């Protein structure tokens, strides 16, 4: 079993829909949780960074951490075709040397 599980998709939704992307994990010691977006042929770019549990909102994006269920989510409101990308979750106990990555979910927003 992988330490971090992420459905590879693809997840295809119509423009304007609310998107929910999720990762589950097995290590209860994880404290730092991140979501990255990766466009084709580009490097990952940071979307959301959360320490410990709770919610964080940034524009159309909301990140949730549920440590009791070992589950993190990224919600995208009013999805746009430009949101079509692969979304990667990552988490660590402390330092970046220990960062564990999900394999990514491919998201397609249909106009």
């Amino acid at each position, binding site marked *: 079993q992988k330490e*971090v599980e*992420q459905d*590879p998709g693809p997840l295809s939704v119509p423009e304007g829909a609310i998107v929910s992307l999720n990762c589950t994990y097995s290590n209860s010691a994880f404290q*730092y949780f*991140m979501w990255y977006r990766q466009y084709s*042929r*580009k*490097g*990952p*770019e*940071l979307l959301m*960074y959360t320490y410990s549990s709770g919610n964080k909102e940034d524009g159309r994006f909301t990140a949730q951490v549920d440590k009791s269920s070992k589950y993190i989510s990224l919600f995208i409101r009013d999805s746009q075709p430009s949101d079509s990308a692969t979304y*990667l979750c*990552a988490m*660590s106990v*402390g*330092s*970046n*040397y220990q*960062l*564990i*990555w*999900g*394999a*990514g979910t491919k998201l397609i927003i249909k106009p």
Partner: protein
Amino acid sequence: DAGITQSPRHKVTETGTPVTLRCHQTENHRYMYWYRQDPGHGLRLIHYSYGVKDTDKGEVSDGYSVSRSKTEDFLLTLESATSSQTSVYFCAITGTTNSPLHFGNGTRLTVT
């Protein structure tokens, strides 16, 4: 791209040849990382550096070596390339050990 340049962007090489990939940063960040990305796998750490001449192994370091002689440059060398090293290689940088990584746009390496 947070001032990160990877070169070359694409490379095709033959099995058994040495290959060096370069990561150059203009952010003066202390920490630099080399990852590989393969379908079905998350990003996997190859090596990282916590300062000039200070490096350590990551999860998948076999067959790879690194060097950092200047703050701005981090080199990844495949001593004798194998087909299993066909991958996309990403360099990342951070200023501290637990701040988010900033990535370059990758080098696509094909070993034939």
